[in-house]
């Protein structure tokens, strides 16, 4: 079996597409790792729903200030140029189209661009947070996800079966196996792991992978 990318490696790949000066929101969990891998010479500005723009990394253990947390309730730090604001202003940034990129996790992504990432169904406690706002606000909505579930089922599907977070909102997927754009209601393969055949990748994918252009090698450093 081919070595898939780790979450850290997916984060590295996603970080390569973020421009200098971009305003970026990273979803709770693995997407938060993207902030660690800004390419040299580029500096993105990170937004968190709970009212901080331009925050820095985690504080040293024991130096946490619990008034200074991100949307995942993890302690962060300020750095020169940080700004605080209230929740309505924070979501004005989101909904008003001021963020360049949002990178979110996913339970399922459909070739239509639909995303499901907030509810696994009627059992359990639902929790939506800011995801539904982000998918309709950021100029570019990308997903970072394992290509398949722990049971080996495709997470990239023709149509989502779980409750939707948003309709036709995702335009790029950074998976453990590939980089895939969503264009015109189709998955368009841009990069795949070098040792993985297109047929094998297709077999792990729940909808047709189109290849109208060249498919690059998804090469990521050991991290």
């Amino acid at each position, binding site marked *: 079996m081919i070595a898939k990318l780790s979450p850290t490696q997916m984060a590295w790949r996603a970080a390569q597409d973020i421009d200098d000066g971009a305003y970026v929101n990273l979803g709770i969990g693995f997407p938060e790792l993207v902030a660690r891998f800004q390419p040299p010479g580029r500096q993105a500005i990170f937004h*968190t*729903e*709970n*009212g*901080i723009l331009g925050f820095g990394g985690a504080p040293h253990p024991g130096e946490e*200030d*619990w*008034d*200074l*947390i991100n949307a995942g*309730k993890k302690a962060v730090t*300020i750095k020169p140029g940080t700004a*605080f*604001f*209230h*929740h*309505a202003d*924070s*979501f004005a940034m*989101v*909904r008003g189209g001021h963020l360049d990129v949002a990178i979110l996790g996913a339970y399922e992504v459909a070739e239509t661009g639909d995303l499901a990432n907030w*509810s696994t169904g009627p059992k*359990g*406690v*639902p*929790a*939506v*947070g*800011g*995801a*539904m*706002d982000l998918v*309709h*606000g950021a100029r570019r909505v990308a997903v970072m996800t394992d290509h398949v579930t722990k049971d080996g089922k495709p997470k990239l599907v023709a149509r989502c079966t779980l*409750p*939707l*977070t*948003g*309709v036709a909102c995702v335009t790029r997927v950074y998976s453990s196996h590939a980089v895939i754009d969503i264009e015109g209601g189709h998955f368009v393969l841009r990069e795949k792991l070098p040792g993985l055949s297109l047929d094998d990748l297709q077999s792990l994918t729940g909808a047709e992978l189109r290849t109208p252009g060249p498919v690059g090698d998804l090469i990521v450093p050991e991290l």
Partner: protein
Amino acid sequence: MDKTIGSLALAVATIGDGMTVMIGGFGGSGAPVELIHALIDRFLATGHPHDLTVVNNNAGNGHVGLAALIEAGMVRKLICSFPRSADPVVFTERYLAGRIDLELVPQGTLAERIRAGGAGIPAFYTPTGHGTDLAKGKPVEVFDGRPYVRERWLKADVALVKAHLGDRLGNLTYRMAARNFGPLMCMAAARTIVQVSRIVEPGQIDPEAVVTPGIFVQGLVEVPVPAQEEDLNRAGARYPRVAE
């Protein structure tokens, strides 16, 4: 005019059964722990208030603050965006047992509904949630070719908010990301009660630095060293303390 209230007990004394109470905070940051605990004290002493509808981003964590309010059996319904936390057992048990109602609202819509309540905007349109289960039954309108969901304002009888400095006229500053929903909830409640770390004289807050102007505040109570919910939970605290 002086909006100072002499004690936490007095600050929460007029909150009645069945009221809608907005409680500031995002997780533990900005959670008015002392005001919430004072409300629990009152319930334990008098049996009131109960059947509260609480508006908060979350559903409490551990066994202090909002979680303790739920655990005490005072909350009938919760309006929130993210009822998960490191230790959400208090809410989760009640929710799965059908003993507490939940209105789940996307976070930006929750913030905007509260602001709308404070700003006299009875309804607004948002792209958020369109085509999802959370927009079911809500009016949809197309503007410039794109569909939007109509959402209503949220108002409250009371808001309990934690701020940093407050002058006697009610002008407030906050501390870092503890600001979150505070300024919005101050606007949206008929009666806003704020706990601040220090009450200062008018003029001691730079007029440029006021985040919540005093017009949105009805009462202030000083809590010089407020508990941080996160610290309490890491220490395994419970409220009220269980007899040992």
